[in-house]
């Protein structure tokens, strides 16, 4: 408990202090850092970051949902193997994996070399250092965080319910929208939360794959801490990001309560 709370309290505390060129933080206490965050520049960064994270989340969901469903359905031996493949990348540092994606996407990288030697394209396709490259990287890194909670809900989804739905005359689509989707919604929400917010903070993906151009909120925070040495401002930005997460969690809680009540009536 203490280990969770203490760093956060330190960050919140720092966000109300004043920048100091040699000691990083100093008194007096101030709200200035939060006022500076209201600058349209940072609003724009935040919105752009949200957009990138949203695209990433939707893609993760589109890939992860069927995958998790299949994963819960295949027989035990395959399941173990697929699970293993899902977990293995975690053994490698995510920064190293980001560089691996870079090797694939570069103009003289693996994909372009393959396409050219197969005669499919003449000139290399520009992929690296684009928004698309950042999104590919984010989806690659965050997909497991979408799949795991979805897998958990699909595991609990009993086949009898689907059969019952069929017997009662529902078609495949109707079964999906009225039975499967509502029952797996908690997993979807958990997955979305686990992907959306981390995606906004993964500054190194934007640095390595986006050519350090497509600023995410995480880049702003990192720049303030390391380059501008403006810790209070960086802290304020990260508090705001945490608050955004809290708001989403709260919305999740509220919507679940509402759904629960609907279920009872």
């Amino acid at each position: 408990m203490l280990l969770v709370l203490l760093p956060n309290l330190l960050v919140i505390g720092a966000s109300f202090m004043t920048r100091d060129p040699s000691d990083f933080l100093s008194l007096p206490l101030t709200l200035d850092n939060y006022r500076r965050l209201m600058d349209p520049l940072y609003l724009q960064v935040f919105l752009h970051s949200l957009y990138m994270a949203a695209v990433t989340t939707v893609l993760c969901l589109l890939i992860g949902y069927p995958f998790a469903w299949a994963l819960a359905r295949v027989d035990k031996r395959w399941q173990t193997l697929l699970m293993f493949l899902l977990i293995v990348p975690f053994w490698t540092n995510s920064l190293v994996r980001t560089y691996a994606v870079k090797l694939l996407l570069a103009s003289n990288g693996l994909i372009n070399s393959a396409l050219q030697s197969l005669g499919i394209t003449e000139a290399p396709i520009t992929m690296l250092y684009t928004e698309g490259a950042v999104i590919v990287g984010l989806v690659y890194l965050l997909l497991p965080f979408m799949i795991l909670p979805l897998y958990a809900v699909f595991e609990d989804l009993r086949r009898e319910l689907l059969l019952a739905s069929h017997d009662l005359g529902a078609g495949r689509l109707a079964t999906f929208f009225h039975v499967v989707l509502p029952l797996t919604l908690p997993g979807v929400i958990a997955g979305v939360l686990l992907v959306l917010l981390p995606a906004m903070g993964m500054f190194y993906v934007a640095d390595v794959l986006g050519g350090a151009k497509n600023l995410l909120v995480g880049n702003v925070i990192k720049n303030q801490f390391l380059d501008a040495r403006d810790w209070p401002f960086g802290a304020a930005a990260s508090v705001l990001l945490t608050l955004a997460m809290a708001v989403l969690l709260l919305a999740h809680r509220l919507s679940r309560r509402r759904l629960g009540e609907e279920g009872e009536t």
Partner: protein
Amino acid sequence: MKKVALAAMLAAALAGCSKQEEQVLNLYNWSEYMPQTVLDQFTEETGIKVVYTTYDSNEAMYARLKLLDESSQYDLAVPSTYYVNKMRNEGLLAPIDRSKLSGFDNIDSTLVNLDIDPGNQYSVPYLWGTTGIAVNGDAIDPATVTSWADLWKPEYQGRIMMMNDVREVFHVGLRVLGYSANSTNPEEIEAAYSKLAELMPGVRTFNSDAPRMPYLEGETDIGMIWNGEAVMGAEDLPALTYIYPQEGAIVWFDSFVIPKNAKNVEAAHKFIDFMLRPEIAAEISTDIGYATPNLPARELLDEEVKADRAVYPAAEDMVNAEVQEDVGEALLVYEKFWEMLKAGQ
């Protein structure tokens, strides 16, 4: 019985280890800034293992040392030019004991006893270099590129590489407009920002980690580079050419310093002394493509390296060149405009 014997052997082996107490030197340095062969030779001669940790900006290095000051994680660091001054003033550095360095007099006298560290009480110059223009000769004729202003030409848009460093990028903007690259005048900085903003849509990537890589990857054809990176890059891409821009290159030099709480000060001195040996300094300069301030080492260099103007510039290359200095609190102005540039405003 077998087990007992094994345990005894293990214990003996462990005791042997602790008795010798393997010495370690924690070196905090720029990435790819020292050849492994040199580090290996040092370990072979002294038995001191070198743990090489890297950073890609002075700011990152400074923040790390400042924070971890008490835990004394590093025995040696290599800050650039004005950071020596800053760290010295803030009491982050331990004085260097000149009596333990036999080769200090090898260093070019124009690079010692400067304002950043009078009398070199805290720093020993390692290498110096410049930031200029790189051109991939396969795509662009290097003879047509002579100045920073050429980057703005329409035909190069989308193929430009810039440093991921606020001061270096603003150096370009300020010099193109004829201002000092160390300007602290907010109006001049803003003007440089407006100029650079025109260039931004054409910038393919920012990179200060290994600035040669975007050229080798085939992603960029023209832009900024450190001279040593251009020399290293030319090994893989022979057409990669280094050009001294008319408006002036950026000049910097990096020095060894010992953090105040370094654990192994003795080893740090040994390492600096090792670096001052002419044959070692010559090997480093040849291998990584930056100029050594070590005069006897320069005599040992191959004619080819000595004559390479990318590494050892001629006098006319250095006209208008400017050394980076501390801009104090004006850094915040730079940072603000830097973020605006990056966010594409």
